[in-house]
Every structure is written in structure tokens, then in C-alpha cells.
């Protein structure tokens, strides 16, 4: 036993064993792994996510006991609806391979979606944040809705309940409001693009005053088109104000945030956008009435002032009146009166005419009613003016009478007298007009006196 050849290490086989080079064994491992894990679904948490300048991204997927390296090439990344971050729970699909240069085994990611929060939810949050940062949701961007739209552009499905509901509401509220529908898919593949196209197309129609884009209620997947960036951008670019009307009371879509106004349902959108014809007619009626009544008052004020001026003028200048013969005064008064009549006639004429013209060509029921009221109003205005004119005439008759009181003869009644020089026959208004010894005739209220000047006193 002492010479027994020691069994060298015991394990070396008789035959010369195969010695792998590092490359060789790595290649073999790679082949085995790739064959075994050609398509694998792996769930885990992302950590150490970093993106290289090339656009490829590298991260580690881990759970509480292990971790595995992952690569996300740029090409795969582009089509993804969300951007992965550290801490995200994800489900990914890929193949396992080995990066020979480093001896690392890793997963080449083909597709990936967030778990837990929900893939769509995550995508929604991210797009929302991105667009918010760009300012697309800013209040300052919101366009004001037209008070009275005559034509409403609608982007929705031509067969859904949404369009029926909206047309119903629009017809009920305002049978003068038109609709231009851009029929679009509102769910499924290509829906978002169609909706965006619709918004752009309707923007080419200059007579469209406001847009409603929407659809009836549905699951979050059904409504998804309204969460797509392309729709958000089309809304933001629209020159025409946009109302979003995605049938979902509680949840907001991205479209809701970008739109100038959000309505909870399509019918609600129609209610918000279309004012009742009745209200419009009433407003117009009220304003027109208000204006005519104001004008009536203005004219009245003016007449009042005119009357005052006439009165004042006569009484303020009694001297001129004294000099004028009574008939002449009458003429002046008549002329003024005629002038006033004329003026009122002209104004009343044009008022009646314009109001008449305004409501003549009005066949509608509403308008008819309005027109009757207006005619009534005009008649009232006329009556009022006529009675005013009558009053004015009477008043001016009175004025003439008071003027009579100021005529020279009446002055004499009050004890004054008029002296005329016999030589000239002219009224004597100054002591310098006569000399001592001149004869004068003094006219009294009753009779006259011939007298001789004894003395002139300056």
C-alpha cells in the first residue's frame, strides 16, 4: 500500500478534458439561455434606470430576492405609451441573452407596461403632466365661447346616441342654430387621428362658431382616444373654441383639460353652447323697447327746454317786444310753433318709419308679437306727442296773451303815456328832442293832450 500511486486529485478523468475558453463557454451559456428563454414575461420593479446618449436605456429589474439586468433599445422605447422610472412595477416581455463582453446575462426588452397603477392610467398621468408643463391647460389659453353660435361643428360618431342627443337639444333650444357634423370613429384603432382630423377640417369652415367634440359614456378604454396627444394638440391648435363632451361625469380626459370648456355629457355641451332662441328674441325686444323709451324721454326733455327758452326769451326782452307791433309778435309765436311742430313731425315721422321698417319684414311668430307691441308703442308715442303739441299750442296762446299785456296800449293803461313832437311826429324819448315853446301831443290810455313845453330839463 505504500507504493500505491497516489490518485492525483481523484477527479481528473483519464481522457484529456475539454478546456473552454472564456469566450466559448460564454457563447454556450448564451445559446442555452437564449433557447430556454426566447420569450419571457417578467414582472418586477425597475431600479437604477438610466438612459444612454444613444437613446437606449438600461435598468435592473428586481424583486425582494433577486435582480436581473435589462436593456431597452431606442427602437422599442419609441412606441411605448409611458416612460419607465425607478420604482415602477412593470410587466415586461423580452428574451434573455448574455452580453458576452461582460459576461452579464440580461433581458432585451421588447415591450413593457406598468403594473399596479394601470398602464393607461400611467400613460394618462404622464401625458397630462407633459402637456401641463407646455402650458396647454392654462386658463389664459382658453378661448371665450360665442354668446350666440349660429353654426356648431361637431366631431363624433354619426351613429351614436351622442349626436342624436345633441341635435335634439339644439333643435329644442334654438331652431335657428345649424349643425355641421364631422363623422368620426370615437373608439378603437385610428379614432384619435380621425377626431384630430375632424377638428382641423371644421376649422376650415369659417361660419362654424364653436366645436363640440365628444362621445357617450364608456369604459376608460372606450374613451381612450380623447386621452391621446394628437387630439390634445388638435384642440390646442383650433382657432374655433372647443367644448369637450366625453360622457363621463367623474373622470376627466386629456381633451377636457385642453378644451376651452368641459361638459360632462354631449347633451350638456349642447345646452351650454346654444342659448334659447326665446331668450335672444326677448333680449332684443327689451333693448329695442328700452332704447325707444329713452329716446321718447329725451325728446320730451328737449321740448321742455325749448318751451322754457321761448318763454324766457319773450319775457327777458320786453323792450323789443314793446317796440314790435302785436301782430308781429303773433307771427313770431306762430312761426316758432310751426317750427316746433315741423320738428316733431319730422322726428316722429322718421321714428315711426324706422320702427315700422324694422318690424315690417318679420314673418316669424315671435317677431310678429314683437311687432304688434312695437306698433302699440309707436301709437302711444304719437298720442303723447300730439297731446304735447296741443298743450304747447295752448301754452303759447297764453304766452301771446301775456305779451298783449306788454303791448304799448296796455302800458298806457298802467298810467304811462307816449309823447310825440308835433313838428316831427316822432315819439319823444329825450328832453333834447324838443325846445321850450314846442308843442307836443301826449297820448294817454284814453284820449290825448296837446301841450306846450315850458322848460327842458336834461
Amino acid at each position: 500500500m505504500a507504493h500505491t500511486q497516489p490518485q492525483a486529485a481523484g477527479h481528473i478523468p483519464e481522457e484529456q478534458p475539454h478546456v473552454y475558453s472564456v469566450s466559448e463557454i460564454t457563447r454556450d451559456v448564451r445559446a442555452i439561455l437564449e433557447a430556454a428563454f426566447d420569450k419571457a414575461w417578467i414582472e418586477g420593479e425597475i431600479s437604477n434606470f438610466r438612459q444612454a446618449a444613444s437613446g437606449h436605456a438600461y435598468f435592473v429589474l428586481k424583486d425582494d430576492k433577486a435582480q436581473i439586468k435589462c436593456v431597452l433599445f431606442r427602437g422599442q422605447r419609441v412606441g411605448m405609451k409611458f416612460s419607465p422610472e425607478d420604482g415602477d412595477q412593470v410587466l415586461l416581455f423580452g428574451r434573455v441573452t448574455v452580453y458576452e463582453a461582460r459576461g452579464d446575462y440580461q433581458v432585451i426588452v421588447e415591450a413593457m407596461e406598468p403594473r399596479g397603477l394601470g398602464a393607461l392610467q400611467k400613460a394618462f398621468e404622464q401625458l397630462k403632466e407633459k402637456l401641463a408643463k407646455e402650458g396647454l391647460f392654462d386658463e389664459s389659453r382658453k378661448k371665450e365661447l360665442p354668446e350666440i353660435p349660429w353654426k356648431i361643428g361637431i366631431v363624433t360618431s354619426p351613429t351614436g346616441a351622442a349626436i342624436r342627443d345633441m341635435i335634439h337639444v339644439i333643435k329644442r333650444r334654438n331652431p335657428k342654430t345649424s349643425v355641421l357634423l364631422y363623422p368620426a370613429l370615437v373608439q378603437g384603432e385610428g379614432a384619435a387621428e380621425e377626431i384630430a382630423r375632424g377638428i382641423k377640417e371644421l376649422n376650415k369652415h369659417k361660419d362654424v362658431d364653436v366645436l363640440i367634440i365628444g362621445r357617450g359614456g364608456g369604459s376608460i378604454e372606450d374613451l381612450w382616444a380623447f386621452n391621446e396627444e394628437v387630439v390634445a394638440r388638435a384642440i390646442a391648435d383650433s382657432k374655433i373654441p372647443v367644448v369637450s363632451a366625453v360622457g363621463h361625469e367623474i373622470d376627466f380626459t386629456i381633451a377636457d383639460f385642453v378644451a376651452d370648456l368641459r361638459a360632462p355629457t354631449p347633451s350638456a355641451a349642447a345646452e351650454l353652447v346654444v342659448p334659447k332662441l326665446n331668450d335672444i328674441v326677448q333680449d332684443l325686444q327689451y333693448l329695442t323697447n328700452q332704447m325707444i323709451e329713452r329716446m321718447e324721454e329725451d325728446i320730451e326733455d328737449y321740448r321742455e327746454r325749448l318751451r322754457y327758452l321761448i318763454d324766457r326769451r319773450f319775457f327777458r326782452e320786453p323792450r323789443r317786444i314793446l317796440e314790435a307791433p302785436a301782430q308781429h309778435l303773433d307771427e313770431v309765436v306762430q312761426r316758432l310753433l310751426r317750427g316746433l311742430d315741423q320738428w316733431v313731425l319730422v322726428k316722429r315721422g322718421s321714428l315711426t318709419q324706422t320702427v315700422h321698417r324694422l318690424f315690417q319684414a318679420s314673418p316669424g311668430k315671435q317677431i310678429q308679437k314683437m311687432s304688434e307691441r312695437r306698433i302699440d308703442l309707436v301709437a302711444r308715442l304719437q298720442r303723447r306727442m300730439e297731446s304735447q303739441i296741443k298743450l304747447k299750442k295752448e301754452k303759447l296762446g297764453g304766452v301771446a296773451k301775456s305779451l298783449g299785456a306788454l303791448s304799448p296800449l296796455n302800458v298806457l293803461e298802467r298810467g304811462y303815456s307816449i309823447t310825440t313832437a308835433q313838428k316831427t311826429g316822432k315819439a319823444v324819448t329825450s328832453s333834447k328832442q324838443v325846445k321850450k315853446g314846442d308843442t307836443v301831443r301826449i297820448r294817454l290810455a284814453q284820449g290825448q293832450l296837446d301841450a306846450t313845453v315850458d322848460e327842458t330839463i336834461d
Partner: protein
Amino acid sequence: MAEIKFEKAMNRLEEIVEELEKGELDIDKSLEIFEEGIKMSRVCSKKLNEAEQKIEQLTKNQKGELVAELFPAGADEDEDDEDDDD
């Protein structure tokens, strides 16, 4: 002649009523804006009279151009209720 927009005419009418209510204008100016107001009122009634409801949809014709056509679902609906939301 450029057509005055309904809303603009309505707003101008409102302004005119306000101005007349303030009563700071002389009679000539009052009459001037009054006449303008009557014109605005006429523009509005005219529009109200002439406006006709059209329910249309855009459809592609043979050349592939989009044209407005009567929307069938909009035409046959009954005028069943006058005003039920007051």
C-alpha cells in the same frame, strides 16, 4: 357692405341703451345713436328671420372632397317638445 355680426349688433345696441340712459348726450347725438340703434335692432331681427336651421354632415364625394350634406338623423326627428327645460 360688410355684414354686421349678430353679437356685435346686439352689443352695440346694449351700449346705445346705456348711453341713452346716462342722459349725457345732446339731442342731436342722442338721435344719431338712436338711429344707429334702430339699425342694429334691424340687423338682429333680420338675422333672426333669415337664419335657417341646417343639420349637415361632411361626406366625401367621388373626387374625395369633403362636402356638406343633409344629415339624415337630424332631419326626421319629431318636433315633439317645445321647451321642457325651464
